[in-house]
């Protein structure tokens, strides 16, 4: 099946309509299970006590912040190179979701940092690069708003998204490349997860819940962007006639 199979907006809308409720339902169920495991079933950490529970929302938020930006950058590249008619709408639709998760990663990290590091914020590599990620999202969204011609806006925003993509590996490896208060990776590492299953499972379930939430919300937002594009075209046609 070629990539252009789903480039047809009608076909996309039909498929999205079928996936969206399932992804939404799955997200709600996983979130309920994940919250129970995170707040009740998972043990407190022997060093960090109950603050370790913040990990179950902080880490999935941070993963989503990076995942959404990677999605945004790939969709922008597809839009620029292959002129896929849905790709720039998909990129545009994903930006506010990514910005939301980046904000959540920063706030929950701060709430975890205060009791464990003794400070809400430090200007180290990991925290600063994630703050830059938030600004990239906001800049991307502002660019769409600032340019009236939507084709020009799409192109400018896509270029910004691709330039900003350099920040994603910087975030991921910042904990290895620079001295930082932030701990190194515990789950996504070459020698396997360094985290006990009693904490790994709730973490993975929460991460899946966030992922399913992203899918459902993204599909709704792409359908909205498609509708807005059709509305604009209809109004233009009306004015012309």
């Amino acid at each position, binding site marked *: 099946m070629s990539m252009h199979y789903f480039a047809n907006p009608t076909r996309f809308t039909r498929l999205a309509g079928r996936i969206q409720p399932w992804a939404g339902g799955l997200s709600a169920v996983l979130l309920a299970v994940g*919250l129970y495991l*995170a*707040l*009740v079933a998972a043990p*407190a950490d022997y060093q960090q*006590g*109950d*603050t370790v*529970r*913040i990990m179950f*929302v*902080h880490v999935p*938020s941070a993963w989503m912040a990076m995942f959404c930006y990677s999605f945004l950058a790939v969709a922008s590249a597809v839009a620029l190179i292959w002129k896929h008619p849905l790709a720039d709408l998909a990129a545009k639709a994903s930006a*506010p*979701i990514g910005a*939301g998760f980046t*904000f*959540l990663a920063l*706030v*929950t990290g701060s*709430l*975890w940092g*205060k*009791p464990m590091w003794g400070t809400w914020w430090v200007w180290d590599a990991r925290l600063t690069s994630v703050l830059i990620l938030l600004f990239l999202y906001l800049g991307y969204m502002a660019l769409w708003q600032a340019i009236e011609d939507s084709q020009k806006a799409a192109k400018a925003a896509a270029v910004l998204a691709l330039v900003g993509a350099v920040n994603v590996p910087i975030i991921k490896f910042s904990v290895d490349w620079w001295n930082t208060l932030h701990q190194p990776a515990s789950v996504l590492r070459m020698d396997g997860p360094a985290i006990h299953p009693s904490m790994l499972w709730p973490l993975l379930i929460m991460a899946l819940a966030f992922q399913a*939430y992203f899918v459902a*919300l993204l599909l*709704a*937002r792409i*359908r*909205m962007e498609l*509708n*807005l594009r*059709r*509305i604009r075209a*209809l*109004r233009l046609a*009306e004015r012309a006639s």
Partner: protein
Amino acid sequence: MESFMQFAEMGGYGGYVWPAFGIVLAVMLFMWIAGMRGWRKSEQVLASLRSSRRQREDISE
């Protein structure tokens, strides 16, 4: 009751743990409601534009 109080205290870190979970759920709920509302509204506007267009075409025929 005592065990509930213990649960709410989160080993003395309740002031950090609960706001963290609270803000995550609040922001996710807000983004969800805003996204779904925007999508439904766009469906309505599009449908009404299309039906008024059809009506006009019927009249002009």
